[in-house]
């Protein structure tokens, strides 16, 4: 069995290493210490139909074993396909209007968009807000009721810290958390589908 040392590697590195190794091996044993890694490797195993086993070791380490089965799906499965139905998506809101042509209409359309999000069968994994979009998450915003409902539904809402700072709103965040450009880029590249009310 191929053994992989993925200590000090954070997600999604252990998954990428496991996928690479499983191209040439029927079974791999991966040593990890990122808390998220066993869960994410399990998701990979569920998608690709690998046998999955995890053993807790010392010092917060885990040994995860993945073995191919006769049901294993060959070919590429997106590493970020956390939603098993492949319906996973994130939403990016980068302005306080929706569409171009009329600002008043655009602002009201965006209200309709966010409300309609709350009624979707599949909620987004995350909502990222940057530039003018950060106004939605701050005190006095009339989006807070819908955004809080989405948050209660498990949606992670994140607003760009540099943007909040630019608008003088850093202390006014009323829903979700503050994030940075590195995390925004990471979130975007790890998700297959980005929905943006442009």
């Amino acid at each position, binding site marked *: 069995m191929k053994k992989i040392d993925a200590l000090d590697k954070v997600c999604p590195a252990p998954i990428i290493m496991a996928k690479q190794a499983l191209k040439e091996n029927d079974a791999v044993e991966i040593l990890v210490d990122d808390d998220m890694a066993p869960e994410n490797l399990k998701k990979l195993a569920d998608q690709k139909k690998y046998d999955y086993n995890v053993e807790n070791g010392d010092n917060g380490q885990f040994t995860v074993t993945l073995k191919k089965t006769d049901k294993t799906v060959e070919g590429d499965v997106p590493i970020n396909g956390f939603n098993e139905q492949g319906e996973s998506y994130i939403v990016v809101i980068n302005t306080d209007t929706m569409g171009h042509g009329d600002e*008043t*209409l655009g602002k*009201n*359309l965006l*209200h*309709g*968009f966010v*409300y*309609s999000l*709350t*009624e*979707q*069968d599949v*909620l987004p994994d995350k909502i990222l807000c940057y530039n003018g979009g950060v106004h939605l998450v701050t005190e006095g915003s*009339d989006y807070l*009721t*819908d955004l809080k409902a989405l948050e209660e*539904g498990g949606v992670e809402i994140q607003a760009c810290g540099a943007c909040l700072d630019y608008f003088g709103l850093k202390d006014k965040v009323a829903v979700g958390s503050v994030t940075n450009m590195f995390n925004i880029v990471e979130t975007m590249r790890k998700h297959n589908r980005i929905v943006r009310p442009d």
Partner: protein
Amino acid sequence: MGQTFGLMTFNTTHEAIQIKDILHENPDYTSSIISTPGSISAGCGMSVRFNYDEKNAILQLLADKGFSYQQIYKGNRVGVKSTYELDQ
């Protein structure tokens, strides 16, 4: 059971936005503008969602100001799904 709310539809998008603005000027009322649900109208459109308990006060306010609307629906939301019945 679910969450009960009111929904007011209009003949035009402009009317919906106008009424939303009027209600937003008045801090006594809780309202928001939403896209008219497909189960009510096959076409596009915007509606005003409001606290059903405030229906009579809102209707009085609109009557005083001379504004009209198309229909009022009583909505019931369970989980992520809302159903609507004609209120009047």
